[in-house]
């Protein structure tokens, strides 16, 4: 292995990355997943951690671009140069760029992830059989609305599972239209457009308006590539048009005629001879995961290796079951060390503390009707262990806002943080003292806005507390949450009487009054809460904003579903020194 001159490396281990834009070749989720796996290649063998952020300057900024894309090191069209990255440092250093004139796949050809339908986002299965005929691309057959679809198993006739293929008629990406589909025709610069266009852009990306008049509304998005989109040529991203005429002959499939290199190509209008519009047909493409893992090696400080089997060897080759080569491991560990191995086992619960005297009456003079009806339980409890510091905790079992103050729960203890108190963090208090009967480890909690009752969740059980009086434990199936849910990771109060409960990558809407979840749930979290980690450990509402926590970080989302901040739980929320 080689490192860059001067052993350039990061001076911190908790690195952040941000994906500035996405290739139209692949679904955004597929790209995000590939990048995540590519970083994991390196974090598995070092103490490094990688966290995706969605705004601001990250250590590693990732972008797709083509030709000259702003850094003075132009790409070269299809094939040849695939990507490059800069060694660690500030500014452009550490950043990774991918040539969007390549066809990005997972290395084995077209990857068409479906949306809607009944296949839960599965990828198309090519070829598939529909009404006795075999198809190797998305089709509109069987539909009257012109929407492209595919089967996600070998036979639609047998299995009836299907989804819709990427199309500008279904959705757009990026831009300012929250994924709305194109509206055709649309007006741009006084001209009417019936298809996606690259007009008005210098980067070659295809876009459309999402209202009938861009000049007036300025609403737009980028067009996802269809499965028949060409790569390179002079029509990047446009679909092949079959049949097309080339030198007077008609072609109904991609051809290598007219070329010396044998590459398959097609025309993107019905007549190449008159229009001269063309591009290469999709091939196996390059694995975004493998190329990203290599580039991130540069971003971390590794130079090219001369070991042919190593990831840091400069040439691309596809491997199905990737394993990091010993040469790469030695290289990265030379820079950052070996890491600490698996996560340490959590310590056993501390012995139960001596019971603490509790105040006998409420200390706050509440005046609201609601609070009088269901009085809040306690005045400030006494800390059971003032020396136990929330700031040394790596994470928390649950976080929630109770009476305007953030409560952090961990292993039988909890701390309170109020933005209004100068004293900062108070605690640790005993969960068992304040809410008798709760287990030491709780997964989630929320306070009902109306009644001020507090709901606690642990495993598949829940408790409802009014003061020290509890109802429970009861099974969460009583709420209508099925066995598909694991631990409840958090809750978001939605106005009066409704609360969203999160588990895994789904959420349910609970009607607090009748204590059952509403029909139509669970729903996929990323359908609405886009840009937050789907494997969040804690989810809670605080100061009217949604918070999703993972590792040391929290993602804050506005009620309009925009992530407006990513910060540290410890430093920003707990305000640890």
């Amino acid at each position, binding site marked *: 292995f080689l490192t860059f001159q001067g052993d350039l490396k990061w001076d911190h281990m908790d690195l952040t990355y941000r994906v500035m834009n996405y290739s139209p070749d692949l679904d955004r989720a597929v790209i995000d997943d590939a990048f995540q796996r590519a970083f994991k290649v390196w974090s598995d063998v070092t103490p490094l951690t990688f966290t995706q952020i969605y705004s601001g300057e990250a250590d590693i900024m990732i972008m797709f671009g083509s030709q000259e894309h702003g850094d003075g090191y132009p790409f070269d069209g299809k094939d*040849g140069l695939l990507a490059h990255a800069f060694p660690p440092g500030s500014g452009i250093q550490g950043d990774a760029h991918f040539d969007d004139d390549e066809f990005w796949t997972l290395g084995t050809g077209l990857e068409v992830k479906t949306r809607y339908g009944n296949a839960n986002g599965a990828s198309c299965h090519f070829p598939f059989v529909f009404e006795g005929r075999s198809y190797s691309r998305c089709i509109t057959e069987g539909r009257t609305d012109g929407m492209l679809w595919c089967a996600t198993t070998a036979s639609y006739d047998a299995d009836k599972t299907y989804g819709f293929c990427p199309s500008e008629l279904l959705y757009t990406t990026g831009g300012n239209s929250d994924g709305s589909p194109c509206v055709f025709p649309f007006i741009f610069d006084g001209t009417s457009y019936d298809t996606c266009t690259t007009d008005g852009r210098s980067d070659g990306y295809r876009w459309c308006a999402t209202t009938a008049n861009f000049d007036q509304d300025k609403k737009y998005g980028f067009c996802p590539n269809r499965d028949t989109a060409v790569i390179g040529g002079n029509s990047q991203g446009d679909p092949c048009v079959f049949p097309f005429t080339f030198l007077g002959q008609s072609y109904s499939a991609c051809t290598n005629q007219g070329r010396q290199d044998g590459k398959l190509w097609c025309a993107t209008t019905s007549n190449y001879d008159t229009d001269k519009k063309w591009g290469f047909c999709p091939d196996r493409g390059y694995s975004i995961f493998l190329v990203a893992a290599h580039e991130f090696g540069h971003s971390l400080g590794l130079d090219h290796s001369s070991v042919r089997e190593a990831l840091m060897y400069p040439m691309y080759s596809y491997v199905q079951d990737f394993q990091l080569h010993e040469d790469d491991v030695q290289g990265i560990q030379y820079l950052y060390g070996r890491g600490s191995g698996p996560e340490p086992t959590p310590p056993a619960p501390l012995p139960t503390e001596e019971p603490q005297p509790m105040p006998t009456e409420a200390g706050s003079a509440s005046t609201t009707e609601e609070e009088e009806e269901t009085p809040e339980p306690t005045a400030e409890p006494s800390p059971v262990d003032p020396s136990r510091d929330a700031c040394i905790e790596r994470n928390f079992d649950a976080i929630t806002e109770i009476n305007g103050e953030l409560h952090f729960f961990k292993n039988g203890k909890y701390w309170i943080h109020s933005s209004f108190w100068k004293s900062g963090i108070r605690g640790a208090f005993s969960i068992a003292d304040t809410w008798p009967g709760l287990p030491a480890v709780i997964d989630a909690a929320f306070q009902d806005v109306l009644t001020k009752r507090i709901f606690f969740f642990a495993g598949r059980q829940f408790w409802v507390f009014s003061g020290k009086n509890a109802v429970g434990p009861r099974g969460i199936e009583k709420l209508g949450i099925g066995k598909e849910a694991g631990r409840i990771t958090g809750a978001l109060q939605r106005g009066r009487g409704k609360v969203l409960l999160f588990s895994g990558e789904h959420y349910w809407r609970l009607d607090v009054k009748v204590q059952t979840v509403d029909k139509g749930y669970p729903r996929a979290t990323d359908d609405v809460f886009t840009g937050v980690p789907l494997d969040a450990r804690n989810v809670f509402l605080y100061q009217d904003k949604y918070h999703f926590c993972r590792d040391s970080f929290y993602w804050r989302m506005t009620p309009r579903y925009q992530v407006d901040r990513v910060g540290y739980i410890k430093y920003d929320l707990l305000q640890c020194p």
Partner: protein
Amino acid sequence: APLHSKPQAVITFPGELLSAPSDVELAESYLLRFGYIQEAEARRSSKHVSLAKALRRMQKQLGLEETGELDASTLEAMRAPRCGVPDVGG
């Protein structure tokens, strides 16, 4: 599939180079781009000597047989898809 069996003429597609670079042109631009040869060095030395030395350096770095010649495996390596970060130098 096309309906004809006669091979068509080879054409130049718009957006592509008018003619593919020769092997030597390809080698020069590759060695320069990936740091095996410096522009000044290329101007100073006689082309043949400079190229052979750089080719050896490249062949060693990429684990190819060190012939100093523009042989088939070297040309194949130069045409392979790869990372844009130079192999030598900053």
